[in-house]
């Protein structure tokens, strides 16, 4: 690369906030706790390393973890892409609301989802009842790979739908029209014209789904069974029994290494397939403008998605409203709000307030981090850029329990004794949230015409102002799509929060967890989950409103 506009307009200046934040919030605590694990007596214990390397069990866990993540990713794409097409191409009544609802599964506590799933597809569930009616055997997905895969798809389909439909809705439709005139059938058009143009967005979504399912914890812990542990769960099992911290640390390194490898491959791939396609305003057509065939296809796809995502949610909401056989009642909600006079009482209002506060603050920080990180990655050429990209996704690769322990052992003295501080929760939320902003922003940025930036430069804008007045507004859609996820991630975050929590700033998922852990708490947990569901849907809706106001001209 010759000097000029594309290489290094102050990469380090741009990337500094993100780099600093990551160094302090990830690298330091992680290094501290891992070093402690690998070198309990001050020097690395090779024995433990060899023990792990020589244990076939751990290699099997790595193999299983990878395989189930790949299958989950493929399935999530298979379910999510038609959904993305629906949202991108069809303007139907309630589209905004539906898109907001799609986000909901993503943030629900796994245990609650497991309950909802069993209510639906368990041996006593509605589906089984239906099968039994026609004389078929009842379903029992418990402890099977199917349960894990179904839950993974349920949780992650939102990523595919939101990220891909956001880009799809703004693709210039003319190349498709051209392809159709050249004699390509509908499927051929999608395969040869649309999908390549959607490449970066699809790859971004796939990478995130892979990452999430690779490090899957709650789903596997609750729905899994013998032989179905992921690395993350294995690490958790080892770490909470402290004596095996060396193994936990080594496996964490293995997980981080494997994840970074996958991320590097993805980052490299994404640079290859970055497709420039003209951005156009929302291309969705009203339902009435579609042919009868397209209309029935859209309706079919929508219905399927609605059933798959909606039925468990409905089962959950129904569960929160039902007590015994007396029909719907609000008794669980009443109990939720009734002061118990116990220290365990968490006022639902407070939990909602804290959840929203953390989510808002974490989203703000995640936007700053994510957008600057995206700028740094985009400006770093070649292999270094790939490496940087992968490194910046590190927070998603680190086992939550390890990060939590890292925080407790690092921010532990003097002025930076933050144990028990809401700050740590905010930091943890920011860290798991910002990769979404980064990915979504990069996906849009890579499809931006670089000449727009050059045009701005020639019109007298320095790098910063070209970024601010041209790139940022054009990336706004991506930033906002990422923000919705960042917000949702924070709303639903449980792993790291559970280590850092305090009753004084308990979030909704913590309150759900707390209720589930107490005798008689299931009804309250379901009621709280329903509230979480509503809060999530409302926030997603609100943020998408913000999006249209902010870039209404687009």
């Amino acid at each position, binding site marked *: 690369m010759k000097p000029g506009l594309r290489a290094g307009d102050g990469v380090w200046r741009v990337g500094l*906030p993100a780099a600093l934040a990551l160094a302090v919030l990830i690298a330091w605590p992680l290094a501290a706790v891992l070093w402690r694990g690998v070198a309990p007596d001050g020097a690395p214990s090779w024995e433990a390393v060899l023990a792990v390397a020589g244990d076939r069990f751990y290699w099997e866990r790595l193999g299983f973890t990878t395989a189930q993540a790949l299958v989950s990713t493929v399935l999530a794409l298979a379910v999510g892409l038609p959904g993305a097409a629906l949202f991108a191409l069809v303007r139907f009544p309630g589209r905004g609301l539906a898109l907001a609802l799609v986000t909901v599964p993503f943030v629900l506590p796994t*245990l609650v989802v497991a*309950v909802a799933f069993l*209510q639906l597809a*368990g041996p*006593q569930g509605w589906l089984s009842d239906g099968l039994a009616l026609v004389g078929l055997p009842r379903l*029992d997905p*418990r*402890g099977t790979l199917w349960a894990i895969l179904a839950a993974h798809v349920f949780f992650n389909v939102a990523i595919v739908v939101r990220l891909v439909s956001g880009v799809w809705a703004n693709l210039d439709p003319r190349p498709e029209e051209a392809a159709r005139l050249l004699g390509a059938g509908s499927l051929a058009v999608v395969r040869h014209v649309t999908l390549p143009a959607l490449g970066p967005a699809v790859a971004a979504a796939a990478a995130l789904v892979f990452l999430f399912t690779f490090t899957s914890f709650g789903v596997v*812990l609750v729905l899994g*069974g*013998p*032989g179905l*542990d992921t690395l993350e769960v294995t690490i*958790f*099992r080892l770490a*909470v*029994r*402290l*004596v*095996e911290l060396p193994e936990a640390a080594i496996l964490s390194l293995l997980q981080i290494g494997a994840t970074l490898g996958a991320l590097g491959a993805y980052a490299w791939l994404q640079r290859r397939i970055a497709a420039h396609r003209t951005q156009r305003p929302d291309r969705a057509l009203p339902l009435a403008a579609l042919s009868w065939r397209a209309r029935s296809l859209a309706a079919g796809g929508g219905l399927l998605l609605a059933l798959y995502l909606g039925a468990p949610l409905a089962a959950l909401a129904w569960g929160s409203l039902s007590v015994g056989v007396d029909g719907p009642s609000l008794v669980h909600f009443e109990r939720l709000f009734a002061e118990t*006079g*116990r*220290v*365990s009482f968490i006022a639902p209002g407070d939990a909602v307030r804290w959840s*929203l*506060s953390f989510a*808002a*603050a974490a*989203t*703000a*920080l995640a*936007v*700053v981090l994510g*957008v600057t990180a995206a700028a740094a990655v985009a400006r770093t050429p070649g292999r270094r850029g790939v490496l940087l990209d992968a490194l910046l996704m590190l927070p998603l690769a680190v086992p939550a329990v390890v990060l939590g*322990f890292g925080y407790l*052992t690092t921010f*532990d*003295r003097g002025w930076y004794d933050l*144990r*028990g*501080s*809401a*700050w740590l929760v905010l930091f943890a939320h920011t860290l798991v949230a910002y990769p979404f902003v980064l990915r979504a922003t990069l996906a849009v940025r890579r499809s931006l015409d670089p000449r727009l930036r050059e045009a701005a430069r020639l019109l007298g804008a320095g790098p*910063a102002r070209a*970024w*601010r007045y041209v790139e*940022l507004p054009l990336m*706004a859609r991506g*930033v906002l799509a990422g923000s919705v996820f960042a917000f949702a991630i924070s709303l639903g975050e449980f792993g790291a929060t559970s280590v850092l929590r*305090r*009753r*004084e*700033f308990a979030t909704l998922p913590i309150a759900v967890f707390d209720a589930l*852990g*107490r*005798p008689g708490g*299931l009804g309250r947990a379901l009621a709280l989950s329903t509230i979480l569901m509503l809060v999530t849907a409302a926030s997603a809706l609100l943020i998408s409103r*913000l999006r249209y106001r*902010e870039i209404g001209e687009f």
Partner: protein
Amino acid sequence: MSGFHRLVPVFAVVAGLLLLGAAACGDDEPRSLAVLTHDSFDMEEELLARFEEEHDVTVTLIEGGDANEIVARAILNAGNPEADLLFGVDNFSYHRALEAGVFEPYEARRRGELPAEFLEAVGGTLELTPIDYGFVDINVDLEAGLAELPSRLEDLADPRWRGALVVQDPATSSPGLQFLALTVALLGEGGWQEFWAALRANGVRVTDGWTAAYYTEFTRNGGESPLVVSYTSSPAAEVFFGELDEPPTRTLAAWPLLRQVEAAGVLAGAAEPELAGAFIDFMLSDAFQAQIPGTMFVYPAIPGTSTPDWWRWAEVGAESAALDASAEEIDRWVREWTEIMRR
């Protein structure tokens, strides 16, 4: 980065409020006492307020997971603890904590009133003071229509109860570990391994924790298993929460049970060791002991504490089994169990 101003204002305001709030949460009070405890900890608010008033102190509760996790946290921060006091260490997790030297000795005023076997269960050392105890046993759903109930532990591996039992993973669940220990205590080395292998072959369900077992797998709550490993107080809790006259479940109590003693200790390096001691005394006070069944659903450690009427459904007639095991030994059980059940 001024360029964010268009996107951020909504978030920024809230963020500011949150940060102010967090600052306000900081330690402005002259004294504060932090208690690291397990997730099931609970007590009456009024009682806590009385303690705070009496000692002019603010009490912060840190719920750090189950017994294993809180001990792990205490060891992780040994010498520089995040709390002054730890409550919830039990007769299986205490070894490791003592080895790591996370506690300071403290002699509670009512220590003399505690039964010797409780003290022995947590090492018989001044570093730990028993506060309550409980038992883990098979709970049976009386409405599930089981034709007969197992009378020996080994019966659970019998085809008659195929797929009927759900247990918890001892690696992640405290009652799970208690139940594993019970099988070790009753069946002995070699016997317990065979038993679990047979259980697995007989379709036993394993969940990560008590919640999933009791609330999703137990037939009482819409699951498939009429037998669940749970606390002997669970039937009483059913009565209490369901406002019932009689429990719809009961414990089998067909064999000796293993007592799980939960203890408290002052953490070494605590900022407020005296206050921590005072809190231990407070936990042994009549007022605190009497509300233990209603808040934590376990048995008060001080003999003769008056308990609510519904608590009679928690009384167990079974004799006590005895088992003391080192941390290494417990680890070995869990490892071997994991070998048997998860590979």
